[in-house]
């Protein structure tokens, strides 16, 4: 529904704006051109996207996600102190985080949801501090190789689509750190 409002608002806005600024003649060709561009973009990013999804699948089957999960346990116990003793939940969260790191969004979401469901049993209907932390960590992106973005850059004619990797890593890390810090601070300040 949110997208309905955004789409309708944007089309109406461009119509009104074009009329006021006298650009109305350019609107129709732009719309057709934009739609055509989307398919061109899709086709030119398809190859890179498929290749990387294949490499990710190999990583997944080779058990790299499980390896990562093991490495993550000490960190996760600190983020979720309330559930540090619950092996089932900690394992699920570790698998969720490592799937996110490898960019396996389809595998990460069901794992995260399972952890959320189990956490909510302790405080039905209310988001506990740990549940808020889980959600905040899942709304931050921590993908090691942002394949889709690289595919878009390549489709746009970039010869080194991965030169943004260091910037993406630093930014993701800072963003998730700010999210975690904010969650920790809010958990102390929040009154309900």
């Amino acid at each position, binding site marked *: 529904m949110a997208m309905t409002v955004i789409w309708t608002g944007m089309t109406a806005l*461009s119509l009104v704006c074009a009329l006021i600024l006298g650009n109305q003649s350019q609107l129709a060709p732009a719309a057709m051109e934009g739609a055509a561009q989307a398919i061109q973009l899709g086709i030119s990013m398809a190859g890179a996207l498929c290749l990387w999804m294949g490499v990710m699948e190999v*990583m997944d089957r080779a058990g790299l996600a499980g390896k990562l999960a093991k490495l993550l346990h000490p960190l996760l116990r600190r983020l979720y102190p309330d559930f540090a003793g619950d092996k089932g939940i900690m394992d699920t969260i570790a698998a969720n985080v490592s799937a996110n790191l490898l960019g396996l969004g389809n595998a990460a979401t069901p794992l995260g949801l399972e952890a959320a469901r189990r956490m909510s049993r302790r405080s039905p209907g209310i988001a506990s501090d740990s549940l808020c932390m889980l959600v905040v960590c899942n*709304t931050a992106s921590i993908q090691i190789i942002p394949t889709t973005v690289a595919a878009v850059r390549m489709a746009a004619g970039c010869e080194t689509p991965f030169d943004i990797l260091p910037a993406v890593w630093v930014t993701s890390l800072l963003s998730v750190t700010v*999210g975690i810090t904010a969650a920790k601070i809010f958990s102390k300040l929040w009154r309900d």
Partner: protein
Amino acid sequence: MQMVLDLLVPGIIAGVSCYGMAKGVDVYDALLQGAAKGLEILWRILPALVTLLTVVAMLRASGALDLATQVLAPLLGVLGIPPETMGLMLVRPISGSAALGVGSEIITTYGPDSQIGRTAAVMLGSTETTFYTIAVYFGAAGIKKSRYAVPAALCADLAGFFFGALTVRILFG
């Protein structure tokens, strides 16, 4: 540094394949199945790409984007964020495919190696669809009182936009 980046992609492809084979994985079969998943993803996002690129092209042709960019330039300029990325920042927390559509329009229009194009790419790669994720998680867990989850998650998004612009400025000057 250039050497590392040159070898990164072939290194990952060959390295992962060797590791997989050593672990007894049918590497080729996994590659094919992953590639098929890639096609599925593409199939799923194409309709959204069409609608979003259409409407962004309309906004650009109408002059509305230029206008909004000019109005917001001083504010975003203080934070060091290119105002051209404003559209991306607005849709990023709401819809993943919309963000991909708007982001790829920016990357194509300004060029993937421009400051603006790189900033858009980093923003796209280091943030998530916050509202959608929160809705899915709290829906699945039956949560009515979300407490501070939304403001904390939005802090992470804002930090992603700000630091995305900053790191691109530092690393690519």
